[in-house]
């Protein structure tokens, strides 16, 4: 559950790692400092929350990807309840959202994710983690499982050409098959943020080990959507052919 995009909330260790990025999960309401209020208009927690919740509801009504994920989860026996499984909270600015496996909730950072587009991306990403948790014996303690679910989420919801370019995985001279590089790096970032005890080399080794299987597992979206195309709608419309209705 870290990175600029999101990842998974880390596993329960005695120190509760990663939960410091989500102070409200531990019961503390984050207080904005005076200069944040003055300079950045921070601290409007209630209005931000309502705005965030509206964006969430809007996504469930209108976004083909979110609707597809909802159908897939429902068909798998894990229906999402908008109130029970989703929470808008104030978090550390380093993260934009995440999935809390302890409470089985998606957390959306209302102070970071302010637009429908961002909320859509976070919801889809985290619902992929939920989909994996619903259909498989997913243990976030297992590094292989964590790597696999992060690879799948990065594969299906991130890494358009332009975001790859921004990350440095691709350029106008290095396009061919760079999507896989982008996915690896994104997954690496997510895994390292969630498991600070793992070294970069270990994480890379695990990612490489499971990469081929997890990169090609495209369920339930079924394709790597091209940004700014009707791919999302096509994926939504073909869902009945794969059992997600």
């Amino acid at each position: 559950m870290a990175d600029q995009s999101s990842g998974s909330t880390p596993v329960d260790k005695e120190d509760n790692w990663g939960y410091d990025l989500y102070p409200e999960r531990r019961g503390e309401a984050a207080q904005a400092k005076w200069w944040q209020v003055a300079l950045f208009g921070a601290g409007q927690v209630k209005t931000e929350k309502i705005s965030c919740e509206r964006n969430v509801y809007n996504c469930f009504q209108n976004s083909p990807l979110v609707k597809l994920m909802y159908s897939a989860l429902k068909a798998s026996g894990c229906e999402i309840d908008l109130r029970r499984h989703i929470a808008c909270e104030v978090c550390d600015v380093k993260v934009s959202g995440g999935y809390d496996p302890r409470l089985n909730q998606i957390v959306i950072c209302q102070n970071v994710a302010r637009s429908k587009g961002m909320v859509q991306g976070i919801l889809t990403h985290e619902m992929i983690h939920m989909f994996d948790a619903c259909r498989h014996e997913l243990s976030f303690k297992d590094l292989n499982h964590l790597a696999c679910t992060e690879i799948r989420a990065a594969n299906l919801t991130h890494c358009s050409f332009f975001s790859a370019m921004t990350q440095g995985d691709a350029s106008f001279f290095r396009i061919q098959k760079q999507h896989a590089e982008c996915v690896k790096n994104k997954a690496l970032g997510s895994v390292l943020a969630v498991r600070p005890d793992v070294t970069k080399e270990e994480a890379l080794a695990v990612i490489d080990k499971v990469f081929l299987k997890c990169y090609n597992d495209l369920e339930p979206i079924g394709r790597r959507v091209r940004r700014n195309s009707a791919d999302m709608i096509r994926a939504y419309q073909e869902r009945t052919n794969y059992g997600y209705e």
Partner: protein
Amino acid sequence: MSEGKEEPKPRTEYTDGKNIPNVWLVRPCESYKDEYTECASIRGRFHQYFIFGENSDCTQWKTDYENCMKYRLHNDIPALERVIQSESKRRYERLAPHYYNDVWKHRTSPPEDWNKPLPTKMQEEYKNTYLDHKAREYKASQT
């Protein structure tokens, strides 16, 4: 899936397309045309190059579109059967990596604690919030 039932009729004997097994896989013909256009477009080709390092083969979408139209306009049953076959193959190719992904074990039923109640403090906070009302509305609209 059909073992134990009577043998499906030999292909040439279907006269009504609606009776062919798996005909529900066939999409409206326009979908196939749309997928073909996307596959063969410049941006689509770039996307394929970015992911696969080469252009994908788009001819199957075109063939499916033509067969679909043959059935729609001329009730050409073998054409419909070819579309069904193509969709079945597509379904297999998409689902196989999912089921063969043995990084994790497949569950036979969803987790029992999927809907376990939240801590009371959280539940109190959530009462009467925007999402609380909308969640109920949404659930009602989904049935």
